[in-house]
Structures are given as structure tokens and as C-alpha cells.
């Protein structure tokens, strides 16, 4: 009953396979896809993460219900930036309905630790390194919630 049982000796938080800043994520951070890209946006939205100070804008160009181009702008931490970059990389060419479905899955995977399957797993698995870092989940989530706002808004 006492909390003594919850005390653990220090464990270094970095295990290579559980580290927050994995190589795949860092790569997106360093060479982000869609960052400051000039596109002919039909829809866009601004997302702010108060705790972290992340401030990001997601813009998409939709033509005949398909996402032709994606871009993001603003100042954010590496997690948010990498998440936005992956989003821009992998959603291009999908239909709005496909994107919304996928976004649901990615969000669930991040907030409820649900595993991704299939191609989504490959594409977005690096994001799941936030699993062990509850405070940073919102950073990874922000581009996705912002994207959904953009899709629901009429630009």
C-alpha cells in the first residue's frame, strides 16, 4: 500500500530502442518534409500546444477530394516537427476520407498506446517512441489534430 513499492532505483531513461529521439525521428526533424513549402492551400489551420509552446500551421491543397499537397509552418519542438513532417510525407495522394481514418488511428496509437498495423505501422512507428513520455504525446498529436481542423474548415 505504501509508495515505497513504487520507488525504483534510477534507470537511465535512454535505452536505444526506447529513446524519445530515435534516428528516424531525428532525420525528419533535421530534413523535414513539407516545411515552409509553398503550396496552393485550399484548407489550413493553426494549432497551439500551450504547455510546450508549439505553434504550427498545417496547410493542404485538396482537389476532387484528394490531398494533392501538404505543408507545415511555424515554430515547434522536434517531436511536433517530425510528426508534421511524416504527415506531409505520407498523406499526399490520399483521399480526405482515407486521411481522416488514418488520422484517427495515429491519434489512438499515440494517446492510447494502440499499435498501428500494416503500412501505417511502417510509416508512423517512429512516432510511437513518445509512448513512454506522456508529457510529449501532445507534441506528436498536434499536427494531426490541426490537420483535422483544417479538413473540417472551409478555407
Amino acid at each position, binding site marked *: 500500500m*505504501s509508495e515505497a513499492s513504487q520507488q525504483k532505483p534510477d534507470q537511465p531513461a535512454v535505452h536505444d530502442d526506447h529513446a524519445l529521439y530515435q534516428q528516424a525521428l531525428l532525420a525528419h526533424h533535421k530534413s523535414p518534409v513539407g516545411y515552409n513549402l509553398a503550396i496552393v492551400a485550399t484548407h489550413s489551420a493553426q494549432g*497551439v500546444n500551450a504547455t510546450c509552446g508549439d505553434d504550427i500551421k498545417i496547410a493542404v491543397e485538396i482537389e476532387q477530394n484528394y490531398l494533392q499537397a501538404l505543408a507545415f509552418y511555424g515554430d515547434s519542438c522536434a517531436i511536433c516537427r517530425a510528426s508534421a513532417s511524416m504527415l506531409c510525407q505520407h498523406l499526399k495522394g490520399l483521399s480526405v476520407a482515407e486521411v481522416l481514418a488514418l488520422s484517427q488511428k495515429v491519434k489512438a496509437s499515440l494517446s492510447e498506446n494502440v499499435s498501428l498495423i500494416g503500412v501505417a505501422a511502417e510509416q508512423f512507428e517512429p512516432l510511437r517512441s513518445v509512448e513512454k513520455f506522456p*508529457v510529449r504525446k501532445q507534441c506528436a498529436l498536434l499536427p494531426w489534430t490541426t490537420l483535422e481542423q483544417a479538413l473540417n474548415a472551409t478555407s
Partner: protein
Amino acid sequence: MTSASPWKQDFPIFSSHAHPSLCYLDSAATCLTPKHVADAVYHYQCYSHANSHKGLYQLSANVTEKVEHARETVADFIGATSGASISFNSGTTEGINLIAFSFVEPILSDAYKKGKPSNLVISAVEHHANLLPWQRLAERYQAELRVVKITDEGIMDLAHLSQLLDNNTRVLAFSHCSNVLGRFNPAEQICRIAKRHHVPTIVDGAQAVAHGKTNVSAIDCDFYVFSAHKLYGPTGCGVMYGKTEHFEQMRPYQLGGGIVSKVNFTESDFVAGATKFEPGSHHVAGIVGLVEAIEYLHDISWPDIQQHMEKLALYLNTSLNELPYYQPLIVPSAKRLAAQPTEVASIVSFRLKNVHCHDVASLLDSNNIAVRAGHHCAQPLHETLGVTATVRASLGLYNDFSDVDKLVAGLDQAYQLMTG
């Protein structure tokens, strides 16, 4: 049941190097602390303490998780469906003040500006904490403070309640269990009546939560408040339950860090949900101790607690009733006692014929018996019942038959000394 309390040994104050012969009969004021709770607080402060909700580092994230998890534990404890309905504060007093300011005052102010009359309804047994905030609001907005009478049994007179509620009633605030009479109000029924008049309900649960399973969902009140220290938890910690649908329209109460999403020198945006009412650093040690207290009670189990307390309460009431000079504040009808023995109060307030209450308390104290004397922060109730002060004895987990016997012997001695 043997006469000894099976849980007394959980309370270090009774250990041989401390106060082994203490007869503590003031649990309605504050409960003594089980070692489990003191340990949990100790371990938290020693090994886990950090700022919640603000740090990115593991130690802080763990504390945040503790606080968020505590919402779930508390929700579960009082039968709320979600931790999102739970907000932490410093005690019942703050909880009621918070609701008065954040929820009720804007409603009153609005009616006032529109020239509509308003009234607030409370009951005659209320603790000052559930009277003074309404008195202040009533005065400020020229609203009427209506007081529901109590029956001879010491509970709310439902017929009178129905008469008092009307379209201009902005809130009904009442205690689940009186801290003087120890009687439970039929909270479900009361809230149903209020609902018929579209009146929001606030339940002061300070005395109720330690005496049986509370179910705010069944009661269907809008708000429910209580304090950790009356539940074998630590000092300085309280809980406000509220239906989450109210939170959005409520304004923040105290202002400070952690409740804002965006601030500049001219304006601020506030966060949503229960944290809007928790500015500044959380009293995490208190929250951790409260969780431990809840788990402690859970481990004992309500049926066992209630069985013990009911037998003890019955013995207390029966023993006192036998004293010829005993003058209870409320005389439970014999019929009711016989019909519903489980409803015997574990708080009794009384006087001894021709002996002043404070003399009784002092004389009992000289025999190591701790009872409360005075109006117990319910002066208007005492006035209503035509007395200025009473002696109050209230039971806790550590009490047993021998405590009742000591009390009776002490009262006898006091009576003889002062009147003999």
C-alpha cells in the same frame, strides 16, 4: 464483534509511547491518521516530490500522473463516472466558496441585472461553511436566503423544501450528513425534488463520505464536496465533484499559474476542465494521502466498517439514553430506532442537565476523553433548537465499546462533581 476495534492498531497515536489511553470521540472534527496514510505522505515527500503538470522530466511527469490518477480513484470512490469531474482544493470550505463564486454568483448577478428576484435555499442544519458564502451572495444580490426546516428526527423537512423551491431559486445547498445531529438527509430524493424545479444542487459531503459508500451518480447532484482529513486523510486537501457539463460555463475561481492557455498583459485564456479550478502548485502530498486513505477504507471494505460503526453507534445511543441527566439535541423516536437500527447516528450532540457544556468537555478531557463542546460551527442550528452549545461525541474506526463506557463513566463523574 469483540469489543475491541480491529483497526485501532493501524493508528500510531494509540501506541504505547504516544497516547495509549486516549479516548478520541471527535472524529467529526477531524479523523486521526492511520499509519498507511502518514507513510504515503512521507514517501511522497521524501522520494517522489516534484512539481506536477509543469515539468517535462520523468520525476515531474510521475507526479502529474499521480494527480491525474487520483482523480480516477476519487471518482470511483464517490461513484462518479469519470475523473474529469474531480477537482482538488484545500477542503470543503474552499470547495463551497469556489462553487459559490464560479458557478452561482454569475447566475445571481445575471438575474439581478435583469431585475429578476432570486432566492437561495439551504437547510437549518448547515455548517457555517455551507451558510456564510450564501449569506454573502444573498446580501450582495439582494436575494433571499431560505432555510428549510428540519423534522423532529433531524433531517430535512421535504414538504417544506418543496414549498420553498420556486422558479427563482438559483441553488439548493445542503449537507449530506449533519455534523451536529449525525443524521443523513435523503440526498437522492432531495435532488429529485430540486430537479423538478430546475434548481442546481450542491451537497456538502464532509461528514458523509467516511460513513458508507457515496454515490454521486445516484444522488444526481450537480456538485459534491468533501475534505480528506475527515476521511482519515491528511490536512489541507479537499475535493470538488461537479458535473463536467457545468465546468465550461464556470469562471475560474482563484487565479494563477497552470490554469491558463494564453496570457498577455491585457487578457488571458483559461484551460478547460477541472484543472481550471486548480491554480498554482498542487498539494500533491495531500492528494497522495487522500488516495491512500481511500485505499485503506477500500481494503477494510464498507460492509465491515458499517457493521462495526452501526453496532457501536447503537451502543453509544443506548448507553447515553440511560443517563437520567442526559439531554440529547434530537430525540430519535423509539419507533424509528426499532425500525431502522442501522440509521443510528454516529455523531451525537447533547447536554447534561444543569452542567455547562464546556465544563463537561474539560472534565472529560481530564480523563483523556476528547469530545467537542460548543456550537460546532452550526450556531444557527443551535439557536433554532433553543440552545447555545452542546457536547458532541462522534465515532471513528478506532473506537470500540470501551470508549463508550469511558465516556459514560466520565459524564457520570462530571455530573456528580458539578451538581453533587
